[in-house]
């Protein structure tokens, strides 16, 4: 985990556990406030969306990747560049649908859920739902509408953590000039 101080390149590293604790405090407070797992999932998604629309500019400014020409390229960039840059992990891209518009990201480790166990009364809580919102918000800013959800989650008893991403459509309103 690294944090920008004032200039361009990465400098100080922040304690990853502080990040895990912060996220945990966020989720537990949301659970107390809303008392309903579905509602908490929605809020996490919304918060993730707001993060995503800002994070995409940071990502583009720092990584200087060009526009992706198809969904496969997008998947590669997300897994190999974006996840590496922000969470320090490299998920693998698998399970492509025959039409090439859906794929899965398999995460071996998830920094958000280090040390976390879900209690029984929160069995439908998608703890890392923030990530889904971030991916959705970020891609929307580069004119791609996607649907992102957790297909499997180690916190809820599955063997692996799998995020399923489905391409819905290209957003044609407000295209930046030169992209039609």
């Amino acid at each position, binding site marked *: 985990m690294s944090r*920008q101080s*004032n200039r*361009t390149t990465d400098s100080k590293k922040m304690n990853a556990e502080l990040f895990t604790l912060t996220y945990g405090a966020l989720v537990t407070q949301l659970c107390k406030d809303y008392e309903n797992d579905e509602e908490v999932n929605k809020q996490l998604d919304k918060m993730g969306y707001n993060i995503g*629309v*800002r994070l*995409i*500019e*940071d990502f*583009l*400014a*720092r990584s*200087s990747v*060009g*526009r992706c020409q198809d969904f496969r390229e997008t998947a590669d960039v997300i897994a190999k560049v974006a996840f590496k840059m922000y969470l320090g992990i490299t998920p693998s891209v698998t399970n492509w649908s025959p039409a090439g518009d859906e794929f899965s990201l398999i995460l071996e480790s998830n920094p958000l859920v280090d040390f976390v166990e879900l209690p029984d009364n929160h069995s439908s809580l998608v703890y890392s739902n923030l990530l889904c919102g971030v991916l959705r918000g970020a891609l929307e*800013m*580069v004119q791609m509408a996607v649907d992102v959800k957790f297909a499997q989650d180690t916190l809820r008893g599955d063997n692996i953590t799998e995020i399923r991403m489905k391409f819905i459509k290209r957003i044609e309103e*407000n*295209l*930046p*000039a*030169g992209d*039609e």
Partner: protein
Amino acid sequence: MAIFSVYVVNKAGGLIYQYDNYVPRAEAEKTFSYPLDLVLKIHDEKVVVSFGQRDGIRVGHALLSINGVDVNGKFTADGKEIIEYLKDSTNYPVSIRFGRARLSSNEKLMLASMFHSLFAIGSQLSPEVGSSGIEMLETDMFKLHCFQTLTGIKFIVLADARQSGIDALLRKIYKIYSDFALKNPFYSLEMPIRCELFDQNLKGALEIADKAGNFGPVS
């Protein structure tokens, strides 16, 4: 100063940030006695010299202040019409400052929107598919550089024609925007940028680019 101004335009074509880095050098203040030998006219809500160029006061210069007090369009600061004021011999001798009129913020907004529309012409005229929009506009006094991000935000820099390294400066400004504007949770997207840290860092980046990039004769 070889970098003259920076404009940031949002996705919809609205100007969200503007910074001017130059002082117009051509300004002249003179004391006049009745009758005034300059011919003045009203143009675009400002009083400009239409004939009678002399002593550093050129045709096209706008009247900036009377007796040290800045004027307000075609009225003086206390609301009197300037042309009438200067026809009255009892107001003389008067000290008037003329200079190149600065663009007002409304004019800048309009010009930014106009550029946003024109930007697309670059890609539409292109013989090849997939061309970008206008990246550079060149005149004999300055060069305008434009960088559009994948999300539709445009960063525009007006610089001296001899200034180099503007591409790197545009990318730097993008980074500063993604840091100090976007990471400020109280800044809403697409709105005018009013973040102090953004201003400070932008000025710093411009200073560095100024020192590093000028290979022509220093003016």
